[in-house]
């Protein structure tokens, strides 16, 4: 790894905790060359206009992801209703054909509140940790979490209202999520109650799907209303401690989206669709520190940018695998 890439790897961790991305200190010579080439190159601009005219929007990854999310959640529902015991429990904790799976953030809350860890809890947490290290950390958010899907639909509504100038996106300080993470960890340890679990829309929705709806859904509805009329994707962007927990797991994950500087027209379509646009700061003109830049750990690997990119400059990538092939 080049030094600029190493620096970026570290700053992207800070960016996940809430720091605003900034212009890189150093850029690799090869990338610098590309940046200079693109500056005012007429051929490049002509090529860009041509590609823009012929771009066809793709929903490949979005469709695959929605299908996965729905199937994963339905598997819980079907396992219970048909009593087929494939995936028993809810997203907070479950058993997949007998193997314990325990959500990392829920496990953390229970460990901090109860201060006693039994073997099954440890096994389930360990299994899930390994699973999401392999699959990309916040992949959990966009590929499994049921709130993510509802929030995506609410976001569409929000964007329609924004277009009609009825509402505008009110941004909030991203550092808040890290603050919430600490507050909820401390609350669990001090009060002895799993305080966050009481308001976790992920847990509430998962249980509502499996065991039937309840009043707790009103809280989820309130969050969605807040997102539609006030602040785009507020819960996932600024509040959810589950996202940060899985984000940390994603730091060392081999599965991520990779950016290739060469073909990029720097139009920013990817940043417009992204839940966490701060991870895509590298696509801004002159910001890429190398010719190939892996996207940081806060990325949910949702693939919306991969779908949106007209030049194929953003692609899913497994670290080391491309070298092997």
């Amino acid at each position, binding site marked *: 790894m080049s030094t600029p890439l190493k620096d970026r790897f570290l700053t992207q961790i800070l960016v996940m905790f809430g720091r605003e991305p900034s212009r890189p200190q150093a850029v690799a010579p090869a990338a610098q060359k590309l940046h200079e080439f693109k500056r005012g190159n007429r051929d490049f601009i002509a090529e860009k206009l041509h590609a823009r005219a012929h771009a066809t929007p793709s929903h490949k990854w979005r469709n695959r992801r929605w299908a996965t999310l729905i199937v994963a959640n339905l598997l819980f529902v079907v396992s219970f209703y048909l009593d087929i015991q494939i995936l028993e429990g809810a997203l907070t904790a479950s058993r997949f054909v007998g193997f314990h799976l325990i959500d990392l953030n829920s496990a953390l809350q229970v460990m901090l509140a*109860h201060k*006693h860890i039994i073997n099954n809890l440890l096994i389930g947490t360990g299994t899930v940790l390994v699973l999401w290290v392999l699959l990309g950390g916040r992949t959990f958010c966009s590929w499994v979490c049921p709130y993510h899907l509802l929030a995506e639909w609410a976001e569409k509504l929000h964007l329609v209202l924004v277009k009609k100038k009825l509402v505008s996106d009110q*941004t909030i300080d991203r550092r*808040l999520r890290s603050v919430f993470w600490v507050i909820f960890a401390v609350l669990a340890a001090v009060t002895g109650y799993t305080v966050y679990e*009481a*308001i976790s829309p992920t847990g509430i929705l998962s*249980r509502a799907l499996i065991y039937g709806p309840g009043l*707790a859904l009103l*809280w989820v509805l309130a969050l969605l209303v807040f997102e539609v009329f006030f602040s785009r994707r507020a819960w996932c962007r600024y509040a959810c401690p589950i996202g940060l927990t899985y984000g940390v797991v994603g730091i060392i994950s081999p599965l991520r989206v990779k950016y290739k500087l060469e073909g990029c027209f720097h139009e920013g379509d990817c940043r417009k669709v992204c839940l966490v646009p701060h991870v895509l700061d590298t696509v801004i003109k002159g910001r890429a520190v190398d010719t190939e830049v892996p996207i940081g750990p806060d990325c949910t690997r949702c693939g919306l940018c991969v779908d949106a990119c007209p030049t194929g400059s953003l692609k899913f990538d497994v670290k080391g695998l491309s070298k092997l092939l």
Partner: protein
Amino acid sequence: MSQQKPASSRPPLSKERQQQARRRVLRTILLTGGVLGAALSGYLPLAYAQRQRLRPPGALDEKDFLASCIKCGQCVQVCPVQAIRLADLIDGFGVGAPYIDARAQACDFSCDAVQCILACPTGSLTYHKPEFLAVRAGAGLAAKPILKAKEKDAEPTLNLAERIGVARLTRPEACLAIQGKGFKGQARGPGFKGEMRYMEVDRWKPIPVRDHPYDVPECDLCVRECPIKDAISIETVYAPDGTQRKSPVVHEPCVGCGVCEMICPVEPAAIEIVPREVWKT
């Protein structure tokens, strides 16, 4: 434009930008307050709870139970009579935690092995409490309870160390046994959805209580259907005026499963489970 000289190397913010930043801080505070307010309001139901919840068998003491329950509902899924339900928002921090509404559907141990404990991934429901958690006086059972249904098996006991409550004759004036009355018909009427395992019908399949009518000259349904050996019996007792009469009497082996409360044919039930109650001699 701002008249001030820049204090740092950063260019000064325009008035508009400053205002935007201020508003953003306000919004951040708003979201912080809203989320924390919602989260901490979960404490109110605990502080003002009118009625304590009966937790599933093997549950830790309430505070430890709520600390350790991960709210996954695996206990709900294994229960053959669907006795376990998950609490809703009105339970505050207890939202998503399992409880039993004994009058609607009691735990009749028709799973034979307390499956909910087996299913629990965090030890909220447990056969053996960790050593650092004390057993309240009177909560521990003197001996492992014998399950009447398994009495002839090689291992007739339930692996339960503590009770989840104790049955109490809360409305003796309504009790048919005390009045010397019999009972004929469906214990809880034709509309009752509760189920129970009747050994003489099918050991492995619980049936609706309404499909199992009774005809008894002297009501003893609570004693007859109690799944635990020697937990309750009909005894002759003396009233304050010296007259003799029959009455259900609860004994030490009572684990608080709630079958007596469910089966009691008077409305509301004459006998009830007091959740988390201990045995007092």
